[in-house]
């Protein structure tokens, strides 16, 4: 669209975040994504109230029921006789816990490391860059497998294993942002005025680097859900009886030819969640980047 037309249409002057949220709300897919993510979060948080049965109670007289075969278990039961609907609902909790914690750790490590390295440069940056080089060269899945086979198969292990390589992407992104931002006029001006580095880094520059980081996180969450599902699929996931969609799909592999429901429902759950986060991520990126406005 011609530049001058943009000016012609958009006269009201709003703040950046107002603009962004307005753009976000206008994007139907983004709102759908947010709704899906909200639903998953709702299931995860209120699983205790929403699930008709405990996720771990085995009914030995009702093993491997198919959907609608028994009125109490609309989605059937699993190979140990546990209500499948309840396990799906609790699976949301596992997926979100793992992915949010891993992303949180990634941000907590990656952002400061990347920011300091990008801002100060020099020897620190050299060291950080080499660490990033080395970690990038590690196949993260192979690395996680190696780590999980050493440590216990509990939820904390999965989170550690995925976090060890998870922060690299965020650190690289933040570093790149800071490399550019530190040369910007306002950063130079702040420096010239004698503003302390810590304030420049964590106040002035971080706010500007926030957008790409936010987008990276929103795409990182489904990535982590994937990774957890993959590890659980090959039997390196969380302990039973905790429910995880990835583990449910993995186990279902042995049953699927007869008991199709064991594979179908967690597949749908993973796909819908991924879809939600993808829409959300796309929407965020478009909303935070004025260039994407139509």
């Amino acid at each position, binding site marked *: 669209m011609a530049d001058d037309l943009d000016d012609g249409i958009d006269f009201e002057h709003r703040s950046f975040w107002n603009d962004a949220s307005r753009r976000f709300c206008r994007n139907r897919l983004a709102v759908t994504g947010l709704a899906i993510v909200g639903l998953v979060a709702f299931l995860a948080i209120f699983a205790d109230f929403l699930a008709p049965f405990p996720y*771990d109670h085995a009914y030995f007289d009702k093993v491997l029921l198919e959907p609608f075969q028994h009125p109490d278990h609309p989605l059937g039961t699993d190979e*140990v006789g546990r209500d499948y609907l309840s396990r799906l609902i609790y699976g949301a909790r596992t997926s979100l816990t793992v992915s949010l914690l891993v992303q949180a750790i990634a941000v907590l490590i990656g952002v400061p490391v990347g920011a300091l390295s990008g801002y100060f440069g020099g020897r620190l940056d050299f060291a950080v860059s080499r660490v990033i080089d080395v970690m990038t060269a590690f196949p993260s899945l192979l690395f996680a497998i190696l780590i999980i086979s050493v440590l216990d198969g509990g939820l904390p292990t999965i989170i550690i294993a995925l976090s060890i390589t998870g922060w690299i992407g965020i650190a690289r992104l933040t570093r790149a942002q800071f490399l550019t931002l530190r040369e910007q006029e306002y950063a130079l001006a702040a420096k010239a005025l004698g503003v302390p580095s810590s304030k420049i880094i964590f106040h002035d520059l971080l706010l500007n680097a926030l957008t790409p980081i936010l987008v990276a996180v929103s795409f990182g969450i489904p990535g982590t859900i994937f990774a957890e599902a993959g590890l659980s699929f090959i039997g390196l996931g969380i302990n039973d009886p905790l429910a995880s969609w990835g583990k449910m799909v993995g186990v279902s592999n042995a049953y699927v030819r007869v008991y199709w429901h064991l594979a179908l429902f967690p597949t749908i759950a993973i796909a819908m969640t991924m879809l939600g986060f993808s829409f959300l991520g796309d929407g965020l990126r478009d909303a935070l980047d004025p260039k994407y406005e139509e």
Partner: protein
Amino acid sequence: MPTRSLLFTPLVLALWLHTSNAQEKTVTGLALPPDAAPYAEQVLRIPCNNSANAVTFDFSVSVYQPYCGSNFFNDPLVTFDKALNPQPGAAESWSVADDGVTWTFILHQGLMWSDGTPVTAHDYVATFRFSADPDHAWDFAWYYTFVDKGGIKNWDEVIAGELPVEALGVRAIDDRTLEIITKGIFPPLPKIMKYAYALQKKALAEHGPYYNNEPATAVSSGPFMLESFDHGFKVVFKANPHYKGYRPPRLARIEGIYMSPATYFIAYLNNEIDTINFNDLSPADFATIERDPELLANYLRPGLIGTDYVFFDPHNPPFDNLDVRKAFAHAINREAIVKSIYGEIKAVPAHTMLMPGFPAADITGDLTDYQRFDCGLAKEHLAKAGYPNGADFPPQVMWLRNENPGIAAVYQAAAASISQCLGINIQVSNKDNKVFMDALHERPTKIALGSVAYAIDFADPINLLGIWVSSGRHSWRHQRFDEILDEASNLIGEPARRDSLFHAAERILVDDVGGAFIAHRWAGDLWRPKVRGASIRDPGPNDTYGSHSGNDWQWGDIYIGKAQ
């Protein structure tokens, strides 16, 4: 159930041998049964696991990393019949001297290698020496330590490199006479000679232990020999025309087709393979078999093969408390687990270590009550241990040893049964095999609560009860148990008294809850209906059908029947 005609096959066969001369003969000159397909069609297709880690066809080189279709190239000294009695294998007879430790095995006359040279006692000696050579560290070497008194004299010293291999208590008196000296008096020694396979001394010297991996250097004294081998894709065995042993093959060829165990059943349904072992059938496969009468009729169960159980670290809280262990043992709803998780085709509930049909097993039900499912009783025990209603019982993680989903479900169900009955929290963690075994062997053990299965090595109670002695794999200890087992294993000539000693030992095991027993697993194979042979089709004792892992003579017995 087999059809009537199959039951009478041996009789028909005997009559027919005298009357017919038109029928084709096998490479060893044996006539095929009248209902057999032409010799060119005597091909059995077996599935091979393409993800298995494998290095050799030979038991004596590696037990745990065998290629598909291993042990066709040699005959063991001793084999078993369906009732698990020892039968002549490569050895036609054996005897023990008055000292009780010097055993003599006489080989069959005329045994031959496929290169035309005779099989001699020297080949067996060379194989034993190879296996004990510290440089080769055979992965089954632990076994002759494990059988304790049944171990070969100087075995541990040779393994340790303290004595030369020549000092091993195995000697060839002449070409056909093999002398084995054991560490102590061990009456069931012939039973463990099931594992005495021979490598060819000459080939071993010329080409090293992997000579059988290449058709060019492979040499066989067993019913089959290697025709071609493309690891990961296909392996072909053909009948050995020089074979002179106890199981002359009726099949002309065995083809091993590599695929993932997950797809064996599909391949079977697509008529790509002719048999599948129960270990490779998924729960969905079993569900399909149980719903299809023809498949069900051809799923043949040779016998109970092993025991699944829960074990504890009895030296540390909370499992140092016998009442806690008793509570756990009574809280496992074995009957329900067998019925709905395994399926009755796969297991029977277990209350003891020894399975029905096994020597000295508890057939009267005398020991059943010690570990009967009784949730009320379980709760009482837990309350007595200081955890009324499970309050304050520390959460536990039950370790599994890299189990497949079907068996993992069983242990998850056992954990759920305990958790639900006692109101406590047990998680189940499926561990990497080596991590599990490392922790299990650690002393003191690192596994507080674990589940594992143990399968039969040889048909003597000492095998299954021996793992519970103080020097065994579990850290449960009971002095009286050790003493009784020691006494029973030395006993010669008093089978009834020996059995009652084992019974007494097992009573201690279940009463002191060394393990909480869940189920005995059925062995089983799915065979295509056209695969025939009394060894797999005729019922043995306990109404089971045939090829236990012990009786490998089925490879000389089975054949492909005519299309009906």
